[in-house]
């Protein structure tokens, strides 16, 4: 089988090869012979591909089918094409805002922006001391509202240049929002610049009915493959507790 990567690399000039080496993170000494440059780059690309394949296999994803629909390898896939000279779309919309998306039980994604005008105001205000995100828990799914007058939260400092962040959530199955805040000098003082939409992280636990759950239903859940699911907790006395003990999330399973 022909080594396509090497074949493609052979078609590039030495200058292009050095530029590509730069982009792949290789620090090659100047004046290296062309075959060695190609060999070094090919090796890095091969390693990257193997890592990617290993990741996919270990995760056993159903999406392999989707990926195989797109069966042809474009030259950009090995990073030979330089990045576009200019951005095709604007990078920001110059507005003060923050938006949150729940990605999975453990992680949320937030992106935000501060308008040029607000940024100028902040910079002109000597009492402003940087930005931070406040992640405010609004309630758990089972208990629709948090205790009256009390909301749990935690803060994440961010830099002026940051525009997005993945946030590790302390537990699954919570409703929360994220506030983009400017810290003010003085203990605990701050100003909320924007509030995100409210989001819910998915729950990873059983929502057993209050009236109890039939034993046959536990067996049906077991036959359905519940042992393969990552459960946060199981109630005491639950027949599944024993069968689930010690089982982690399997690598190559659909659920």
């Amino acid at each position, binding site marked *: *089988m022909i080594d396509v990567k090497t074949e493609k690399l052979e078609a590039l000039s030495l200058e292009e090869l050095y530029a590509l080496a730069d982009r792949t993170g290789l620090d090659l000494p100047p004046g290296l012979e062309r075959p060695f440059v190609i060999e070094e780059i090919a090796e890095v690309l091969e390693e990257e591909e193997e890592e990617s394949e290993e990741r996919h296999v270990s995760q056993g994803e159903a999406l392999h089918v989707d990926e195989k629909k797109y069966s042809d390898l474009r030259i950009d896939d090995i990073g030979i094409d330089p990045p576009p000279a200019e951005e095709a779309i604007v990078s920001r919309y110059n507005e003060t805002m923050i938006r949150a998306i729940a990605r999975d039980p453990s992680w949320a994604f937030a992106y935000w922006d501060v308008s040029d005008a607000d940024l100028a105001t902040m910079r002109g205000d000597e009492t402003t001391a940087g930005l931070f995100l406040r992640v405010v828990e609004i309630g758990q799914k089972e208990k629709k509202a948090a205790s009256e007058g009390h909301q749990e939260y935690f803060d994440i400092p961010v830099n002026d240049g940051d525009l997005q962040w993945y946030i590790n959530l302390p537990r699954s199955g919570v409703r929360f929002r994220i506030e983009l805040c400017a810290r003010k000098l003085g203990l605990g003082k701050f100003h909320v610049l924007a509030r995100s939409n409210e989001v819910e992280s998915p729950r990873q636990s059983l*929502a057993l009915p209050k009236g109890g759950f039939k034993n046959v239903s536990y067996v049906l859940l077991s*036959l359905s493959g519940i042992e393969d699911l990552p459960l946060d907790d199981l109630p005491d006395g639950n027949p599944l507790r024993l069968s689930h003990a010690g089982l982690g999330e399997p690598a190559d399973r659909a659920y």
Partner: protein
Amino acid sequence: MENGYLALVLNAHMPFVRRPEYPRFLEERWLFEAISETYLPLLRMFRSLEADGVSFHLSLSISPTLASMLSDKILGDKYIAYLDAQLALAAAEEERIGGDPAFGPLARMYKNLYRADKDDFVELYGRDILAAFDYYYKKGRVELLTSAATHAFLPLFRDSPESIVAQVETAIVTHRNAFGKHPAGFWLPQLGWYPGVAEVLRAYNVQYTVVTTKGAIFGDPTPERGSFAPVECPAGLLAFVRDAEAANAVLSESSGYPSDPVYRDFYRDIGFDLPANYLQGHLEGSEERIFTGFKYWAVTGRTNNKVPYNPLSAQAKAAQHAAQFLADRSKEAENAAKLMDRPPLMVCPFDAELFGHWWFEGPAFLEALFRLTASSSGLGMITLGDYARCYPQNQISTPEFSSWGDGGFAEVWLDGSNDWIYRHISKAIERMSELAERFPDESGLRERILNQAAREVLISMCSDWALLMRSGKSSAFGRKQIEEAISNFSRIYDMLCSNTVSTEWLTKLEKRDNLFPDINYRMYRKKR
């Protein structure tokens, strides 16, 4: 009464890759390969079963973007040109290796397949594959479902309800235009479910969908019948539950049927084996090495020393795997039936392109499965709609946010490789809603431009682009599709804000991104 039911649900989908401005466009080959390797073989299987009087029942989702492309004349012409190029390559291959005892028959096999494709497409179906599927739909053999307009991964847009409405409404309209019937079932792209989507689907009179085992089991309350019966959401939507064991039997990378050593190897293709100068002239002008579809080697194992592919052995293995699959499901049903008040249902949702495109022998596996179930007592094949009619009473429960992607949530469509897109798509959705509110009752040119804006927003939401960026395959192409759609939308937005319209540019864009001719931009208005 059957001891249990098997519901096979296939999702046929391709992202919108039509590029009429180019005589040849590499990504259009994705569609052509799927037609040749999956859609036509499925139809051939239906014909064969029908000719032998074998009863078969299948639920099949045809995505709106695929339906748009399958009914497009330009793409039809290009598909015929693709088949001609494949036949020319087949002739060259026959000349090159026709005398070889191992490879000669394979070269002739490909020639015969591409000839059959051309005969079927041009003569038998009059270039109308949708009508061919519709024939079996009307006969009650195949139940057709729809899916989100551009296969958007809906959970990531749940906070923009107008965008969910746009995906659902456009899908329903496209399905009705293509098949003259309202779709009762809706395939959630990537099985991406979130609490709340049921209300939108029910508002459009969708009756059922499919969710993952994980989504159902973590639902509220926990389903008493596990994955062996659907649950009914409070809004009235039935959520059928994927059978995890059945999925693993096929999809597991390490032990799934397609990885069997005798099956045809997907990756080993003459496009990467033979000298470039031989291939040039046969690859539709492509200067890249690409998959040609001519593959002569068996999976063999994790080695580069592959053995030649033997179609007869592979067909026999497919029949064997079908029997194994049926036996395993029968055992599963037997265990569950003892504990249930009705025959257990095992729902097997797969991407249609798995069968034929990736797993070359997949259609043979399906045909053997249909024949076996028809000839043996025990398990019966059923469509989702028929099951819903037989068992209208189901436990009330709301599944939890879930998908069939890595990890079971949204990690595939939201990670470091593609997260930047959501800022832009979300802004485009917000601005589209703003336009729909500002111009609620337009006609003529302004309505055209608003409808095109709505199309561009839908295109930007396609989950395939994020997937491509994450997979590293054609990632620049995926990125470009989103950038173009957002850029086109932004230009329209600016035009409408400044009250200046470039009709020449608009007409050109309408001709290129011509999907969803009956789109109605007003669906982006906020619900009151």
